[in-house]
């Protein structure tokens, strides 16, 4: 069954290292996302699995078979391209049955597969149409059924929703997952959209600069980011810089800018370390006036936006740092710009990371 295993895989294009010593295991029948900003090497990694590029180093296994020297046509994969790559000189039917035909499955079998796949994506009635006559969503579905009709058990999707309108994108993402699950396939989906990855994946590998930073379920990545970039890229985070000023048995006291002291449960650092605390905007609470609680900092409201479900509140803290607070619109007080408020957060719902060597701003850039 299609389990994919990468062992120390590196891909260089000239001097550029696109994929840097990546080891990864994708389980059978899993919906797996390769997530990361553009240029992080996720598409190259997918193309390595497909055999469209050869690794400079390392081994790639599909179903426990070393496939490094196996050409793409013999890897038993289906590949959906970002811009679909539907053959412009063939109609929908000829596109979808191309795989069975070149694999010489016989005309009856080709016809059965083509019909089945087109019916599945509800495009059987458009089988005479040429790609240029189809909408983006239709092309996407044809591309998907073409990849599936070739009989692949491993489906590789390169930004398959990237070229679609937001609404269709949201509908099709669940459909994609459903097809993969219903047909008991293994799916590897490349995307730069964290919301998309969170919504449909069983597990996600977050990549940056050719390296995998963390692999885990969407919850794991959100709840326990192991790298400051993960906390930044998955969901939203506020970052407060400071020093570990004192360690107790259970807690560490961190001194923020302006001499503000806050408590966290972090035990990974030692006194004197320069650190960054990451706090999700949705775990911060805001109250009017000046309040004294654990980890409370006073400040004033600098911006306030109603966004439908939530309100977003920008607060300038007394030490000059800016934090974002997101609260459910119906469950929270509303504030006016300029109003004095107190922001607080609990000792456990935050993450403490060592201060990045190359500076916080550069560490968090998407390039």
């Amino acid at each position, binding site marked *: 069954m299609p389990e994919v295993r990468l062992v120390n895989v590196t891909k260089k294009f000239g001097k550029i290292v696109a994929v840097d010593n990546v080891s990864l295991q994708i389980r059978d029948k899993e919906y797996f996302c390769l997530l990361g900003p553009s240029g992080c090497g996720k598409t190259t990694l997918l193309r390595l699995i*497909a055999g469209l590029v050869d690794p400079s180093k390392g081994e790639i296994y599909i179903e426990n078979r070393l496939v490094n020297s196996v*050409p793409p*046509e013999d890897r038993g994969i289906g590949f959906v*391209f970002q811009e679909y790559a539907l*053959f412009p*000189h063939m109609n929908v039917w000829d596109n979808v049955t191309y795989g069975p035909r070149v*694999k010489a499955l016989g005309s009856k079998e080709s016809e059965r597969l083509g019909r089945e796949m087109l019916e599945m994506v509800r495009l059987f009635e458009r089988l005479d149409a040429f790609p240029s006559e189809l909408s983006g969503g239709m092309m996407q579905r044809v591309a998907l059924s*073409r*990849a599936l009709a070739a009989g692949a058990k491993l489906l590789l999707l390169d930004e398959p929703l990237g070229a679609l309108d937001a609404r269709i994108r949201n509908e099709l993402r669940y459909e994609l997952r459903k097809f993969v699950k219903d047909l008991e396939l293994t799916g590897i989906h490349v995307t730069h959209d964290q919301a998309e990855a969170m919504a449909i994946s069983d597990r996600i590998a977050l990549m940056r600069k050719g390296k995998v930073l963390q692999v885990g379920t969407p919850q794991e990545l959100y709840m326990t980011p192991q790298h400051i970039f993960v906390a930044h890229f998955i969901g939203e985070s506020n970052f407060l810089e400071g020093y570990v000023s004192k360690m107790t048995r259970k807690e560490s006291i961190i001194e923020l800018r302006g001499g503000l002291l806050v408590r966290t449960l972090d035990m990974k650092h030692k006194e004197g370390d320069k650190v960054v605390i990451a706090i999700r905007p949705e775990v911060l609470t805001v109250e009017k006036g000046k309040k004294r609680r654990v980890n409370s900092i006073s400040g004033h409201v600098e911006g306030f936006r109603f966004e439908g479900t939530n309100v977003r509140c920008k607060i300038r803290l007394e030490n000059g740092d800016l934090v974002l607070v997101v609260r459910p619109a119906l469950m929270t007080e509303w504030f006016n710009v300029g109003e004095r408020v107190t922001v607080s957060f609990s000792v456990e719902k935050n993450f403490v990371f060592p201060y990045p060597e190359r500076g916080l701003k550069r560490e968090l850039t998407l390039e």
Partner: protein
Amino acid sequence: MATSSIIKFLDSASSKSSVRYAFYLSSITFFATIILIPPILGIVLKWNTMAETFTKPSLMSRATTAIYASFAIAIFVSIIDVVAGLPVAWLVARGRSRWLNVLDTFVDIPFIIPTATLGYSLLLFWNRPEGISSLFGGNLLSPGWLLVILLHFAFSYPVVVRVMAGAILDYKREYEEAARTLGAPPFTTDRTVTLPILKPSLIASFTLAFARSISETGATLIVAGAFENGPILINNLKTAQELGYEGALVFVSFILIVISSLIFVTIRLLGPRLKMPIKKVWPVTERKLSGSRITNLRNALSLIAFFLLVLIPSLFVVLPAVYAIINGTLNKAVVGVGIWQGYWQSLILSYSVGVVATLLNTIVGLPMAVLISRRRLGTKLSSILDVLVNIPLMVPSIALGVSLSIFWRSFAVMPEMVLLILVHLSITYPYLVRSMVAAIERLNVDFEEASRTLGGRPFTVFRTIVLPLTKYSLFAGAIMVFTRSVSETGATLAVTELKTAPVLLVGWVNVLLGKAESPIPITPLDIGLGCGILIGFSFIILLISRLFARGKGRY
């Protein structure tokens, strides 16, 4: 400054649609009165002389045989060109090794060498005792149809490689990758996906190779021997001036022009509808054909064909040229003694005519290119113009020359020089227009619209957006006009006694082969050096164009 006020004036004038249309109209008028109508009227003027030919069966059969030979050779050569050129185009476009960059440059060489020189080089290589034939104890190939085929193959081959390599570079590789991931081995992928998608370029390269073969005269004259195709027959008739030759001349020119135009229009209309067999797949055979052994064999064979039949014969003339430099012929040449005085004069004539033709065609060709590519006069008229501007490419240049000469001479006493320039304008007109039409069509209209919304007037938009973004194509087109003009032989022979460089060289070779006489003896070294100097200039032009093409920000 005067120029800036002219530009200002043009900018503001271009806002008026009447001015714009007047501008386009003048471009069309130029095309009609200088390029399109004269050759047609030239034939019509001498229509009555054709009847004579029908009463002379021997002349008639000679004419039909020659016409048949022209088309047979052109079709055969173009097919072989595509078959042999495609793998090399593939290597040039896809290969990553540095040697393939060298190959890329080599491919252009026969393209840039004036064809008359190429003809002499092939003659040397295959026939003369100085060439490869010496290895086989005598002449390997006598002048005749086989040598004509080899020659036509050599000079039309680069066109196919150039066009196809460009198309393969532009081709979206995802199609190929999609086919591979769907289970098709490389051979099946190329046959069912890549080549069908590249069909327009395949047709274009075939057409261009065909056009080059059908219209070439100078080099063919050198290697033809007793063999006659259309252009050679026209030349022979003109030289011999037998009784009633004019009728046959008009007849052959007329047939050549009509059939070439018909073939061109047919390819234009039916080409897009041509279906390639892609439904059936033979998995086992095609998998074998995809193997690296077969692929390597194919590449090796096409490279051998390129080196042995195209590159080495084309460059063979360099040997006597080098020898001529060593033994002192060069000094004679530089001083301009004997035949060399005429040589330098004709070189200056060739390059001056080339420069004038290039400048004029750039000025009149640009509006035409905009007109066609942006469909300024409606889709229908634009596509008709698109077909019409290409016709001079397809028509044998000597036939075009014959009818142009009849037309212009029937009016008034034309200075020979003016006539020469008019003919060169006709023959080179399509190159710049084609190149610019393709470039402007590729250019996203958004840029122009953005410029308009920012306040640019039509001429400002053209000047500041379209022209800078397409300057490489403009340059490439201009280079093509210039090199075509410099190597033009057939039409020049037909219209004037003035000797451009290639005409002079053909004359020299004829003296060498005993077909003509000269008061001063001409040696192979003289001809070698004469060709070498022409090639040298061509190389400088190639080099400059390569440097330009490498500039940053190519679009």
